[in-house]
């Protein structure tokens, strides 16, 4: 199936071409080139998906993984090697589809959004690089291949966040994103090392096969080996999850995500909403059988981290005033949903509902979150500001965006029949089945979600009070900015946000490959939906018209609000750890020690030699008699030495 290789190759070609020659020769062509490549990629991905899901994939009612292409890339030992290949199985195909689709959307959108940008070609080449890396990640056959592309994804994210490199905040944000995720990757790497040592293979297929069979010696070895009282398998899986948590911005490694909004908005839509940030979820899903069958403890960690992140982010999102930051926190919250859905799931059959729900939510979320971001992009383009206070009442000037944004908000709030409703419902029911605590937390978070999303919605499009939004919007060119590409994409995605939920997702994706019918239990849905609607109404109450209701409430909350506004001071804690501890207590002393002690040691040797040499200089007194005295003394002592040695004394 060479077309699957081509899916990856096309973005790469686009990257290389516009990366090397784009600046000089293809200044305006590179956007088209990237988009066309992406389009072809998407079509290929769609055909692959069609082929897989409807023609070749199902064998005996089960979707099995196939590997159309694989090569040995780097061999470590006879057993361990990095194989680069393409794995086609339900989730990878789903991801291929999502990634190529969202990427295509973003490519198209950027044609309008980035027009006239000085580094237009560079932008497209980075975008293509990202897509390539992300595709490589999702089709990975080998856990190390995942890691390889994982890193590439990280760097392309870095490049895109730091795209406006002359802006100090963008530089800082890109740095932060890269370093935090890298820190998490350290866990991933360590996890891979632990896992591979016992598994004797790095291929997912082998790892899963060996670690899910209780009789397998590999599994026994890793389960019995323990470090600090915890089995090596738990260590490995938890460490790998740390890697995933870093990429997916799970608490407490989430700090990079809000800052990452410094990048161009389409980038945020692509990377920080729809694709890269779900890589962590995808990674856990990829190894799901191992988690679920052999190490429920690690899976429990996933669930807890997921639900904490979901609630935590939702709380913070309620207080933020930057449109993209609110979206970022909402992303974090939604990914938390996916995570804990995986965490509460079991392997196989009905028990595997959480897994399916998680993937489903991933799928729907990608669509409506991309839409939200792209809408936000249009708004920002229009207003030239990210701050909610600069907006308000935009429904008149941007009617289309108003509608699409509303659809997306409804989708994320889980209002039927929009996409989010279906997937969220599955998640909640999975949580309900397995863990009531998580379920109640999730319900509350869902309500919060609808509150903050509609807060955002109302503050942007209504909330106009006395001031005219147009005063800030630069009408003269705002009209031209919302080009056909941008609006078109919004419409397409809005349609997606409406219909995506109707996909019979369980038919295709489930924990064990067998079809798992999705079903909506109306009675079960009543509570979450009504809570969501309550959230909407609450938001409407506060933010439909400009008033000081919200401010009074926030003042009433006092320190709680301040804490939320400051995102629980997590950033400050990080800053403290990095600046005070790592820089001042580790790096600076290391540099000092090196200069003064280690190097000083060498210099001291030299100095000591010199001092010694000077202290001896009196010997060479210039007086011939003392020379002779030394001479005689030397002679006598030599005589003594030799006689003594011969025992003649």
């Amino acid at each position, binding site marked *: 199936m060479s077309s699957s290789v081509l899916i990856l190759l096309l973005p790469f070609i686009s990257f290389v071409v516009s990366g090397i020659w784009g600046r000089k020769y293809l200044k305006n062509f590179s956007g088209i080139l990237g988009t066309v490549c992406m389009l072809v990629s998407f079509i290929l991905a769609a055909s692959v998906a069609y082929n897989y899901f409807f023609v070749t994939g199902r064998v005996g009612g089960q979707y099995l993984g196939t590997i159309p292409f694989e090569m040995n890339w780097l061999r470590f030992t006879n057993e361990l090697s990095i194989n680069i290949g393409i794995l086609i199985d339900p989730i990878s195909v789903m991801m291929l589809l999502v990634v190529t689709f969202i990427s295509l959307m973003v490519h198209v959108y950027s044609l309008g959004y980035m027009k006239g940008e000085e580094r237009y070609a560079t932008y497209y080449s980075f975008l293509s690089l990202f897509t390539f890396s992300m595709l490589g990640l999702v089709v990975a056959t080998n856990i190390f291949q995942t890691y390889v592309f994982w890193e590439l994804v990280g760097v392309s994210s870095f490049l895109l966040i730091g795209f406006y490199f002359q802006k100090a905040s963008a530089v800082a944000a890109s740095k932060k994103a890269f370093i935090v995720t890298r820190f998490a990757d350290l866990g991933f790497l360590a996890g891979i090392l632990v896992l591979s040592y016992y598994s004797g293979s790095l291929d997912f297929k082998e790892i899963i096969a060996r670690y899910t069979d209780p009789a397998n010696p590999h599994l026994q070895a890793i389960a019995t080996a323990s470090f600090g009282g915890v089995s090596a398998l738990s260590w490995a899986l938890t460490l790998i999850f740390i890697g995933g948590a870093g990429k997916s911005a799970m608490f407490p490694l989430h700090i990079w995500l809000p800052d990452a909004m410094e990048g161009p908005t389409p980038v945020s839509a692509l990377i920080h909403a729809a694709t890269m940030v779900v890589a962590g979820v995808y990674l856990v899903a990829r190894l799901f059988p191992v988690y679920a069958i052999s190490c429920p403890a690690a899976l429990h960690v996933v669930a807890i981290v997921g639900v904490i992140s979901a609630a935590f982010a939702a709380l913070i999102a309620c207080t933020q005033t930057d449109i993209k930051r609110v979206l970022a926190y909402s992303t974090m919250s939604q990914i938390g949903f996916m995570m804990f859905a995986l965490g509460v799931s079991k392997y196989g059959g009905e028990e595997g509902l959480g897994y399916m729900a998680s993937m489903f939510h991933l799928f729907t979320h990608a669509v409506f979150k991309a839409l939200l971001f792209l809408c936000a992009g249009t708004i920002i383009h229009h207003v030239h500001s990210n701050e909610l206070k600069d907006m308000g009442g935009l429904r008149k000037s941007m009617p289309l965006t108003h509608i699409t944004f509303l659809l997306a908000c409804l989708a994320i709030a889980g209002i039927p029949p929009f996409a989010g409703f279906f997937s969220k419902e599955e998640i909640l029911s999975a949580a309900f089945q397995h863990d009531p605590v998580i379920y109640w937390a999730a319900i509350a978070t869902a309500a919060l979600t609808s509150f903050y999303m509609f807060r955002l919605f109302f503050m942007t499009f209504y909330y106009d009070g006395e001031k005219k939004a147009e005063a800030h919007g630069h009408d003269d060119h705002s009209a031209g900015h919302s080009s056909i590409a941008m609006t078109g994409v919004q419409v397409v995605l809005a349609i997606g946000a409406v219909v995506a939920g109707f996909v019979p997702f369980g038919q295709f994706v489930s924990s064990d490959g067998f079809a798992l019918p999705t079903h909506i239990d109306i009675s079960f849905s009543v509570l979450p939906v009504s809570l969501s609607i309550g959230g909407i109404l609450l938001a409407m109450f506060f933010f439909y018209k400009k008033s000081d209701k919200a401010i009074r409430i926030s003042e009433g909350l006092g320190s709680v609000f301040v804490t939320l506004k400051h995102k629980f001071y997590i950033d400050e804690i990080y800053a403290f750890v990095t600046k005070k501890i790592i820089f001042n207590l580790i790096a600076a002393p290391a540099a000092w020690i090196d200069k003064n002690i280690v190097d000083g040691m060498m210099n001291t040797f030299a100095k000591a030699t010199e001092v010694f040499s000077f202290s001896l200089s009196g010997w060479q007194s210039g007086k011939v*008699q*003392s020379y002779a*005295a030394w001479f*005689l*003394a030397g002679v*006598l002592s030599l*005589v*003594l030495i030799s006689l003594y040695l011969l025992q003649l004394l």
Partner: protein
Amino acid sequence: MDSSVISFYAISAFLLTFGVMAVTTRKIFRAAIWLLFSLIGIAALYFWMDFQFLAAVQIIVYIGGIVVLIIFSIFLTQMSGKDMPQALTSRKLIALALSLGGFAFIAHFLAHANYHESSGLVDASMPAIGRKLLSVETGGYALPFELISVLLLASMIGCIVIALKKAQEKP
């Protein structure tokens, strides 16, 4: 007591006493004279050991040559009557300790060495010495004899060159 015994001790006492005086006196001219006496004592010791030729050489070369040279150089370089500056006491003590220690050490081993004294007589007559001196056979000293002439020549050249006044400088 044998007269030879007495004369040995007398000679020894003589040469050592003047040796000590030669290295301790504060007047340089006297030092030269005491050295002269000490050297004469050594010549006497050679006589005592029946090495007449050597004794003669000693007297001619040392007394007639070196000591005279020394005395001349004393006249050339400084007033003979003045007291010479003394070395520091610490230096003297160190020198004394080294000398006495060295003497004790060497003397100890010399006294305790195994000697196989031979009763043979040395044929130190002039003709024998002369023959050996010019012999190129085993036990002959012709080559050293030649060599020393080179040495003397070289020393002579050296002396002349160094001692010559710079007035004779060549262009």
